[in-house]
């Protein structure tokens, strides 16, 4: 077979990209034909996603493949490269978007802002540009596709552009995206080390002095952090995610954030070569702060999509914590531990792509069925929407990081990584890093709180509004999408050894070592990253034993006693007027967290007095960073503009005077 199938992989990926582009154009041709766009184009696109994953996965262990596209500026063609890291993220893109696109086919309705055909174009441009970002092998191709990705997603966010709030969210997103893009561009500028050659191959060959390497690291962290939602550049996430239609939110949160992570990994482990240990500490600090911030704010949210957006911030934080740990280990040449941390991080990328897409799609179905995003007006939907509820429950367990779901696997790997920090040669790091482990654990535990709130308030209890009883379950295509992602969550949770084996070539390429589970533990059931004595986890056995106990208990109780059940009203505490309004609201459920972490929030409370005829309680929670950072930057920008504006007097004589003074100054300079 030789090199023939390997050659096919990158061409296959390009083929998918071109086909996505064609589907987008077909959407333009059928601008208002919703049935065609939704029932034909989106499912077709989903099968292309599967094809993408099918091309990318076999290419993972192979040698890197390169291609040069003739498009681009003269003498500046697009360089493309498909190596293990790209293939992994392409597979992630394919697997997640397959479910999302199928769901989208059932989701979009007529008369929602942008015409369906145009939406289809934006959507597929977005998909294609993400694939191209992952393939790009020079700064030029990377930046062009990165921009296409930002712009197409901007148009997707502002699908309902008639609402002012959504336009504002879109603007904020565009702004942060461009601030980030500038930083990434500067980072590439540093990386090419004055050679004028912007291909990644050249950047790899350069070895920068520590100062410039650190500059590149800082710029990359800032630039990609803006896209990933790292503190303090996270502000666009909780605005853009609720504004976008749910499949778009899923795609942005599940996949687009991962392209930023891809960028971070690419720059730090591939282009920069040998990292310095303190970069890892910076990444750990930023990551942990982001994770804590995200989860604490998620607990206080009352809008279900905002809650998920903050939860995404939390997960990105955890991923960056893993990267930071990997950088620290890599800096001290502890290859297998760096591989462990990197695998934890990448595994979490994959998991988050699955479960967060699933949760966002679930909220989309709820939103369509009820027209409500506010948690306080939902409740009891499990009875009316069982399909959505059960699939979401899987996502909730995964998001809470509990066994035997996939979320637990990556958390487990990350914590295992932390347990090895005692071997680090630097005593300060040995002291500091376990504190980060404590923080990670706190974040994971809080995530459980958030997820109970999310699921319990939406799907359990009694409906808080009358109209909820008319809520309908998701349609066929929507169910297929949800089921696909659910299956992804379950399989990633149950077969971690197989997944990590697939990821081995990535760590081998980036940090020189793989985890090589199959060689050592010798058991595909048992996940034991270092040795079975040290730590092991077997989700299948875990699930089987629990299921067996549950089954045996059910059978035995029925055998020896009975299985009678009587339905009755719940106990009313002797107070007959029990209504659905007596359940905890979302605000109520988050109240302990608000009380404990009060200094984090900027809260406005409206408390009723005992004498109010119509008592009202209202609490709004705002992001303090908005006031501390953004409004100050805005005020400073305004002040500087006003100051610069003083130059502009609007009189021709003044401008002539400027010209004259400039001329004199230049003459003076040239003479000197």
């Amino acid at each position, binding site marked *: 077979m030789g090199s023939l199938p390997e050659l096919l992989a990158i061409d296959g990926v390009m083929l998918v990209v071109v086909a996505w582009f064609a589907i987008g154009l077909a959407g333009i041709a059928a601008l208002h034909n919703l049935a065609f766009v939704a029932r034909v184009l989106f499912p077709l696109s989903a099968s292309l996603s599967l094809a993408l994953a099918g091309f990318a996965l076999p290419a993972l262990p192979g040698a890197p493949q390169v291609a040069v596209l003739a498009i681009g500026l003269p003498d500046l063609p697009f360089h493309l490269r498909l190596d293990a890291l790209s293939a992994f993220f392409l597979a992630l893109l394919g697997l997640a978007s397959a479910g999302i696109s199928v769901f989208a086919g059932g989701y979009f309705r007529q008369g929602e802002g942008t015409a369906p055909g145009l939406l289809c174009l934006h959507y597929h441009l977005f998909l294609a540009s993400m694939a191209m970002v992952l393939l790009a092998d020079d700064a030029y191709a990377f930046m062009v596709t990165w921009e296409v990705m930002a712009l197409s997603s901007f148009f997707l966010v502002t699908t309902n552009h008639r609402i002012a709030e959504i336009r504002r969210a879109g603007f904020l997103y565009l702004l942060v995206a461009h601030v980030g893009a500038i930083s990434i561009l500067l980072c590439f500028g540093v990386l090419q080390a004055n050679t004028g050659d912007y291909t990644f191959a050249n950047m790899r060959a350069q070895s920068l002095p520590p100062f410039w390497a650190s500059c590149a690291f800082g710029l990359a962290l800032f630039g990609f952090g803006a896209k990933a939602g790292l503190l303090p550049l996270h502000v666009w996430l909780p605005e853009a995610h609720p504004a976008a239609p749910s499949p778009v939110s899923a795609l942005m949160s599940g996949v687009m954030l991962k392209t930023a992570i891809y960028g971070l990994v690419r720059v730090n482990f591939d282009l920069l070569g040998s990292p310095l240990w303190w970069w890892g500490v910076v990444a750990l600090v930023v990551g942990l702060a982001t994770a804590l911030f995200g989860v604490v704010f998620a607990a206080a949210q009352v809008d279900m999509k905002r809650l998920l957006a903050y939860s995404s911030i939390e997960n990105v934080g955890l991923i960056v914590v893993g990267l930071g740990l990997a950088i620290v280990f890599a800096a001290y040449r502890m290859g297998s531990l760096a591989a462990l941390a990197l695998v934890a991080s990448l595994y979490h990328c994959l998991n988050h792509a699955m479960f967060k897409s699933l949760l966002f799609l679930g909220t989309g179905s709820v939103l369509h069925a009820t027209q409500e995003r506010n948690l306080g007006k939902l409740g009891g939907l499990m*009875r009316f929407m069982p399909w959505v509820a059960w699939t979401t429950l899987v996502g909730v367990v995964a998001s*809470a990081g509990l066994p035997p779901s996939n979320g637990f696997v990556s958390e487990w790997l990350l914590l295992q990584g932390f347990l090895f920090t005692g071997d680090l040669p630097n005593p300060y790091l040995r002291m500091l890093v376990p504190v980060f482990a404590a923080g990670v654990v706190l974040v994971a535990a809080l995530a459980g709180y958030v997820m109970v709130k999310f699921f319990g308030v939406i799907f359990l209890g*009694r409906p808080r509004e009358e109209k909820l009883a008319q809520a309908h379950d998701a349609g066929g295509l929507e169910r297929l999408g949800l089921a696909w992602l659910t299956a992804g969550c379950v399989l990633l949770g149950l077969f971690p050894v197989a997944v990590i084996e697939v990821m081995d070539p990535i760590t081998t390429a980036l940090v020189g070592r793989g985890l090589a589970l199959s060689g050592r533990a010798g058991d595909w059931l048992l996940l034991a990253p270092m040795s079975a004595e040290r730590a092991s986890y077997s989700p299948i056995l875990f699930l089987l*034993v629990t299921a067996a106990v549950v089954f045996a208990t059910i059978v035995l109780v029925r055998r020896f006693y009975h299985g*009678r059940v009587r339905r009755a009203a719940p106990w009313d505490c002797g107070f007959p007027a*029990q209504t659905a309004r007596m359940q905890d609201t979302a605000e109520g459920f988050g109240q302990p967290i608000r009380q404990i972490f009060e200094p984090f929030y900027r809260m406005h409370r409206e408390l009723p007095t005992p004498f109010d005829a119509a008592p009202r309680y209202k609490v709004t929670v705002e992001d303090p960073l908005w006031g501390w950072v953004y409004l100050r930057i805005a005020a400073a920008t305004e002040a500087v503009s006003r100051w610069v504006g003083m130059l502009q007097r609007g009189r021709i004589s003044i401008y002539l005077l400027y010209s004259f003074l400039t001329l004199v100054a230049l003459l003076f300079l040239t003479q000197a």
Partner: protein
Amino acid sequence: MNLEGLLAQLLAAAVALVGAPLVTGWVNQCRAWLQNRRAPPLLMPFRTLHKLFWKESVVAHDASPVFRITPYLVFGCMLLAALIIPTLSTNLPMATAADAIALVGLFGLARLFISLAAMDIGTSFGTLGARREMLVGFLAEPAFLMVVFTASLISSSTSLATTVSALAHREFTILPSLAFAGIAFTMVSLAENARVPVDNPTTHLELTMIHEALILEYSGRHLALMEWAASLKLFAYSCAGLAIFFPWGIAEANDHVALLWALPALAAKLAIGGFLLALIETTLAKMRIFRVPEFLATAFLLGVLALLVHLLLGA
């Protein structure tokens, strides 16, 4: 998985299922004595379970399947927890399936479902209980993990069986890190098992109850399973504590003589532990719910301190 391991595993399961209600009964007995009451018989929890299993289960009209499956799931989780903690022997095939971190995750899974089930009925008590349970949980879980981390770092393994063998074989010195971890673990166990000073297992006062509010809607066999699961949880926590801090008397693999001694040793250790628990519960007052975060934050900090002490002093 060899035959011997399988037998040890089945023995551990039997000991857990029988021992857990006994421990609960013993603690109740001790508490009654300490409070100058006439004590209920030691086997009282079994009679209660038997009675409850015979009663019919009353389920609210609005209850979803989550409500009905949760008792079985929680029971399964707790039994699995008891299976992976070395109670009599470290030769446990199941211990490779889930290490100490997975154990914490297992308790987390049970907590998630028990809270969801409480929210399922849609009464004010259920949601209140769920909220408080999650509040206690998210603070106790990290503290517990810090304790686990300390023990894992000392023994360089997160597998409980390996940890126990490693800790049992060291010479007898009181390590400062383990001392800190021990205090943290005691505080966490009190909170997680709904004991005074965090919760009172004997009250139904709405202002204070946590665990009882969660299972308020359960009756019949569902309630029986929940109660059994709660006593299994107490048993599992006690055994985890005994395994980490007092690992002597637990049999190693292929040591049949030690296995004979392991059961009386466990019984003695649990009896002393149960008495101490009753003593704590009798002498302490229950604290306000908003003091609980401070209590558990202290446990968390002690856990972090234990970790740092180990890393800095190597002790």
